[in-house]
Every structure is written in C-alpha cells, then in structure tokens.
C-alpha cells in the first residue's frame, strides 16, 4: 500500500498554468490498516477493538463463514445446491461490517455477502435454501427488514438510499448499509444513489468489497479511477479505503462511519480492498482469465489466518481453540445442511401465493389450473 505524505502533489486534474487558474477544491484519499499479513501490527489497535472477546468473535465468525462456504461448494458439486458464489478470502468484510452494525440497522447485501448475512442472523439453513433454489430462503426469521441478496448487480444501491430515506423521515438513528463489489461501481445506479444520498444527507453506508475481479474483468479494466473510494467525491461525500483483509480495520472503519452517520453527518463510502480467492461462482472457471500465481500470492493476504496469527501472537488463541472452533463450526454447518436437505419443495400454488397481498380475482383461475397441471411431474418444459 502506498504511503505518500499528506501534502503530496496532486495526482490528477489540470495544473495551474497561469493566473487564469484558480484552485477551487482539493480531495485526499486515505487507506486504513492495523494488522498486516502474518498478524503483525502496523498501528496501535483502536479503542473500539481493545476487547479481546470482540476480536475472537470476529475470528469465529470468519471461520464459520469459511466452513459454510466449503459446505455450500461441496453441496453444489454433488448436485444438491444451485450455482453458488464463494466468499473465500473476503470473510473479513462481511464479518467486520455486520459486526459493527446494530440489529435495527438495515443490510442490503450483494449476492456474495453470506458472511454479513450470517452475522446478521440469517440462518445457514436459510442461506442454503435460497442458493438451493427456494424463495423461502429469503424469508429470514432473523433480520426481518434486511433485503434479500441482490442479483442484478448494483440495482440495490437505490433501495439502500430509499431505506435510508425511510429512516431519516422516521427520525431514528439507524443506518442502511449496502454492500456490493468493485464491478457494481460501474453501474449508473451506484452513482445515482450516492448522489441523491449526498444531497439529502441520508443515513447510508456504502461498502464496496473490492475483490479485484468482476467475473473475468479485472479491477483495472473496470475503471481508470486509482481508488474506488474516490468515487464518493463525485457525490460530495466522504470516501475512504480500508484493508479489507484486516477484520479490525473493517470493523473500526465501519464503526466510525456508522457513528458519524448516526450523528447526522450523512452518507459515507468505504472501499474494502480484498481478493476473490475462488472462482466467481461454481459455474465459473477462473483459470481461463487469471494466473494461478496471482491467486497464490493473494493467499498471503488471507484475512482468516491474519487475525488468527495476531491472536496467537498475543497469546489469545491456541491450536486447541482452533480445533474446537472448527469442530463446532463443522457440526453446526452439517446439521443445518441436513435440515436444509430435508425441506420439501413448495407446492405449485406458492408461485401465486405471495405475488400480491391478496391474489386478484383474475389470477385465481390460473392458480387452480397450475395446481392441477403441476400435480403431474411429467409436466413442465424440462
């Protein structure tokens, strides 16, 4: 990471040629990191993370996310789950962000934020149900106001602004938190939502999980902007980078941003730098477009081992702790997977039953027909 001095030369923009040029505005982007690879501390850990139990909670949650991820991939490979996007290598973001949120905040996750969803209280069973191809997986029993995952990339940014507007109109101090990838910052809705949130000073936190790839399109091919954080400048709101593989940095940056937002200081953007260690989804083969070597290098940045190394170095974590934790996580994930697999398919009528609050008269006949036709397993185009 770059460490220029504060008063560095301008990176971009016209330089003053003569008296005709007035300096109008200046912007700086900073990047935050506390723990570097191998668990070394580069800066004193902030007050909010002085509690070792908190760090352990972050660590456990990342491990749970990873164990879940492995299971999901295994289920997909054996035909018991649909196409699945792995979050391998990005666990610190979902965990860090969601851990800093309050229950009454609203999360709007992208399709890869299983970690954030788990932390928010979506159950493993629900996550599997959703990725197994069943709408009931989005009927979370936990965070009832959170959004389901967003598949059309970037289309949930305006929802987040809308949820934030609702919060602001109600006068409460909770926050809407939206997470999306680097690719999502190329979509118009990203800028539209950020811009309006800026004008209206909405309680909105935008987290960009910059994992360097949007399927096969690299970060460099996605935008010429040196950072994604600087996209906030277009909306006149604060933007910052954080080492997204440092759970402490993610947690702290989120915590501080949420505090500022709750205090009425308007929307905020965090770009969390990370790397997608796996394929884009189980339907993807990343070796078609990137070198294994690049991937290997990034394992060095792995957020899970980084925090473990730190905790170990500080004598807060042992091999036995690790063993116990893994067993716990595996046990939990396996039993949830069993429960998922036991859930029967919805009845045909389910297609109709949540389309409207009350099924309109004209659709009742179709529903009956569908139930009749659907009885027959031969039917259907497959």
């Amino acid at each position: 990471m770059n460490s220029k001095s504060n008063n560095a030369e301008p990176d971009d923009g016209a330089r003053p040629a003569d008296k005709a040029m007035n300096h109008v505005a200046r912007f700086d982007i900073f990047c935050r990191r506390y723990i570097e690879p191998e668990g070394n501390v580069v800066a004193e850990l902030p007050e909010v993370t002085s509690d070792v139990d908190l760090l352990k909670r972050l660590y456990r949650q990342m491990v749970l996310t990873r164990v879940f991820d492995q299971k999901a991939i295994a289920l997909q490979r054996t035909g018991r789950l649909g196409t699945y996007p792995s979050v391998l290598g990005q666990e610190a973001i979902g965990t860090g962000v969601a851990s800093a949120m309050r229950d009454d905040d609203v999360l709007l996750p992208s399709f890869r934020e299983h970690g954030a969803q788990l932390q928010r209280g979506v159950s493993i069973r629900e996550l599997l149900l959703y990725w197994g191809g069943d709408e009931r997986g989005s009927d979370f029993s936990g965070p009832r106001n959170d959004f389901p995952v967003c598949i059309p990339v970037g289309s949930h940014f305006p929802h987040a602004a809308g949820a934030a507007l609702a919060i602001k109109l109600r006068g409460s101090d909770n926050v809407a938190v939206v997470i999306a990838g680097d690719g999502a910052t190329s979509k118009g809705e990203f800028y539209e939502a950020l811009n309006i949130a800026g004008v209206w000073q909405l309680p909105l936190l935008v987290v960009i999980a910059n994992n360097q790839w949007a399927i096969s399109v690299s970060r460099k091919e996605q935008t010429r902007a040196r950072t994604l954080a600087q996209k906030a400048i277009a909306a006149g709101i604060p933007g910052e980078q954080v080492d997204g593989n440092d759970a402490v940095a993610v947690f702290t940056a989120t915590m501080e941003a949420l505090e500022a937002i709750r205090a009425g200081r308007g929307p905020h953007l965090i770009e969390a730098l990370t790397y997608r260690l796996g394929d884009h989804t189980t339907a993807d083969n990343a070796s078609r477009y990137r070198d294994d070597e690049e991937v290997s290098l990034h394992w060095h940045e792995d957020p899970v081992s980084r925090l473990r190394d730190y905790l170990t170095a500080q004598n807060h974590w042992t091999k036995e702790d690790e063993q116990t934790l893994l067993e716990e996580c595996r046990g939990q994930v396996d039993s949830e997977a069993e429960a998922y697999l036991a859930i029967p398919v919805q009845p045909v009528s389910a297609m109709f039953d949540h389309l409207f609050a009350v099924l309109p008269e004209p659709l009742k006949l179709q529903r009956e027909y569908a139930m009749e036709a659907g009885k027959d397993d031969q039917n259907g185009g497959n």
Partner: protein
Amino acid sequence: MTKMAETDLLGAVNLALGRALQDDETTIVLGEDVGVNGGVFRATDGLQEKFGSARVLDTPLAECAIAGIAVGAATQGFRPVAEIQFAGFIYPVIDQVLNHASRLRTRTRGRLSCPMVLRAPYGGGVHAPEHHSESPEALFAHIPGLRVVIPSSPQRAYGLLLAAIRNPDPVVFLEPKRLYHALREDVTDDGKELPLDQPVYLRQGRDITLVTWGASTLEVLRAAEQLEAEGISTEVIDVATLSPLNDEPICASVEKTGRCIVVHEAARTGGFGAEIVARIADRSLTSLLAPVRRVTGYDTVIPLPRLEVKYMPGTRQIVDTAQEVMALS
C-alpha cells in the same frame, strides 16, 4: 373534510395526492420538480407548501434512482408516490419495477412488500416535443406482480389514484395528459377510493363492444354517439386496470354484442389491445359475429407535432371500423 368541486383530471390527481398525504403520514411524494414548482403540469401544486419538503421531495434528475428509492422506502414502511415527469423518461425504471418492485413480496414470501405508486403523464396529442408523447402501458402490463391503472375521467382519477396509493402492492398509474384539461366534473374529496381490477362500463349498447382506456375514451365516446345516430348501438368499456386484467365484463359484453373493437393510442403490435383480443378469442370466440379489429397507433414512432394528428387513432377511424365490422356480420 369533504369538499365537492368541479375539477379536471389534473385537479383530481392533485386532490387525491393531497388527501393521501393528509390521511396517512407514511405517504410521501417524490420526483423531479414536484416541490416548489408543483410539477411541470402542476399535479403536485401546493403539496410541498402544505405538507413540507420532508414529505414532498424534489429529487435530482435520476429516474432509475427515483424508482429504486421508492422501492427501498416502501419496504421500510412508507408509501411513496413517485412521479416520472413524462412517460418518455420512464424506461430507465423498468428494471427497478420489474426486477424489484413487482417481485419483492414473492421473492421474500411476503416478508417485504412494496406499496408504491409510480405516476406518469402519458400519451400524445398535446403537441409536445420529441420523446414526450409515449404510450408505454403494454410494457408494464406484461409484468407479473404489478398493477397498471389508467384513469379516464376526473372522478376515476381521484378514486383510482387513492386506491392505488393505499394498495399494498406496487402500481404504475399512467395519466392520459391529453385529458388533463379536457373535461371537468364534480369530484367529492371524500377520500373514497374506486375499486381496482375492475373495467368500467361507460355506455351500454347492443351491437358492438368498444374497449379502450386513457385518452382514447374521448374518441370512442364521440364515435359511439355518431354510431348511435346511424342506428348502431355500442357498449363502451374503459379497462381502467390493465393488469391484472379482469376480462369478465369485457367478454360478457362481447358475448352480448357479438362484435368488438379495441382502441388505443400505443403502437398496435404488442400493444395491450392484443391481450384484450386474445382473451376474447379464447373465452368468447363462439359468440363472435365478426372479426375483432384494433384501431390504434401505427407501428411507427409517434411523429413530432406537425404530423402527430395523423398518428392518433381518431373518431372517424373508429366509426369506419365499426361500420365495416357491422357489414361483415
């Protein structure tokens, strides 16, 4: 507070919005220029003054976000009524309406819902600039989980808009701007809604059923009078809620008259008239005494003002077609 006053369709929209804002504090109005300016047509005139800029919000110029923000606020307990300034600028919101607003309830098995209204003036005939005369109703009427409602009189504008706002699901509410000032009638601001999903009989008759909606009701009613004078008795139905389409009253009428013409301003191919005809050809075929014709805009781009009148389906075309249909049976 109940007031009766003669007003036009635009005034009725304004009354309904005011009533909704008054009755339910979760109702908010947002869109470009809806605040101080009261909307470019004045549909929101006076509302910001009365209800404040927190509930009547001028937005930056971003249609997709306007719709998406309405979605987000709707899921969190509000009832946003978003205005798209002209239907020609509504296309960027289709993604939000189709992929999100109309699906959130079913995607989450009822956990979240989207009680929002998207209003837009639509249609031609007012000599507006390019891209200001669109009739996109068919695009929305194909979206499952969405209601498409079009009023054709001040009373219906008032009652249907209130119903749309109070409805627990998303509604696209298209206002035929050619009718904004075309007729006035008494509208009682009593907060009473009219039923959605219900076509309206505008005229009872014997020989032929004319099905239409929006501004075309004007020409259809005019044609009906001319035809009456010629001894041809028409039944006129205003579809009002295009989707979900309740075809019962339409098919019942066609089964009575044995003849049908559908009239709309949008381009013919893939227009919503096709759906009306398809329902009839399915349910009431054996009652038909003659082919079902459509009198519509052509399958061309609606021309700029100088030629626009030649695009719009007119009274004469409806009368001619009715005579032809009568002659064929």
